[in-house]
């Protein structure tokens, strides 16, 4: 018998590749919280933060402005909620991100930008980036606090 999918809730959504994606992602997350009222506020906040930061980065940085046809841009958001974890996979067909996540650090107190990746890393239990088959995959994982 093939292994059944692990128990949990999965939300898949293809997203606009514009800042509108951010509001749509907030809506998807709201559906997740509506389906399971047991996720603690602290876990919701840190997961939502990382999803929105990574999504915002993709929208802002993954495609070079005016290059290529916007209609060929693809962005997907897959959310998973299990008893143990919150997971998000963001996939896009933009240019490869030349990023070393292990060296993303918080800039000085005066900086008005450049905190997104460091904030995401601080918020969640794991954040990974890989390039697979011409797509960028960003994986976010939050281990849920025991109730």
């Amino acid at each position: 018998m093939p292994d059944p999918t692990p128990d949990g809730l999965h939300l898949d959504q293809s997203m606009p590749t514009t800042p509108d994606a951010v509001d749509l992602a907030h809506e998807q997350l709201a559906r997740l919280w509506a389906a399971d009222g047991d996720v603690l506020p602290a876990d919701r906040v840190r997961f939502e933060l990382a999803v929105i930061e990574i999504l915002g980065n993709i929208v802002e940085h993954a495609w070079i402005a005016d290059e290529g046809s916007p209609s060929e841009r693809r962005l997907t958001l897959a959310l998973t909620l299990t008893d143990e974890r919150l997971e998000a996979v963001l996939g896009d067909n933009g240019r490869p991100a030349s990023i070393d996540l292990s060296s993303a650090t918080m800039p000085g107190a005066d900086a008005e930008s450049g905190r997104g990746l460091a904030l995401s890393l601080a918020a969640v239990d794991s954040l990974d980036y890989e390039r697979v088959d011409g797509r960028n995959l960003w994986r976010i994982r939050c281990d849920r606090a025991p109730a």
Partner: protein
Amino acid sequence: MIEIDVFRRPDGVAVVVPQGRLNMVAARQMKDLLAILLEEGSSRIVVDLDRTTFLDSSGLGALIGGLKGARQAGGDLRIARPTPEVLTVFQLTNMDKVLRPRDDVESAFDA
């Protein structure tokens, strides 16, 4: 997804109240609004975050930009009543010491 109200107090302090999610899209609005206030000579600003349900790094950037501008103009920008969501971001970015949130809008400029 956001509405930003502005009140001017008799003592000259401008109270800015973002209601909703202060994210990528709203951060631009916030930045513009703070720039206009400074141009108009309002360099003492309180940002009341009691109704801000979400803050991300770009929203935080807008607040820091406003703080710098206000100080350059001889004033200050103070943060009041952050929600738990907002406070989480201040803490994760170590900005809680810099932004020093106040419990109260009225007295935010007292000390």
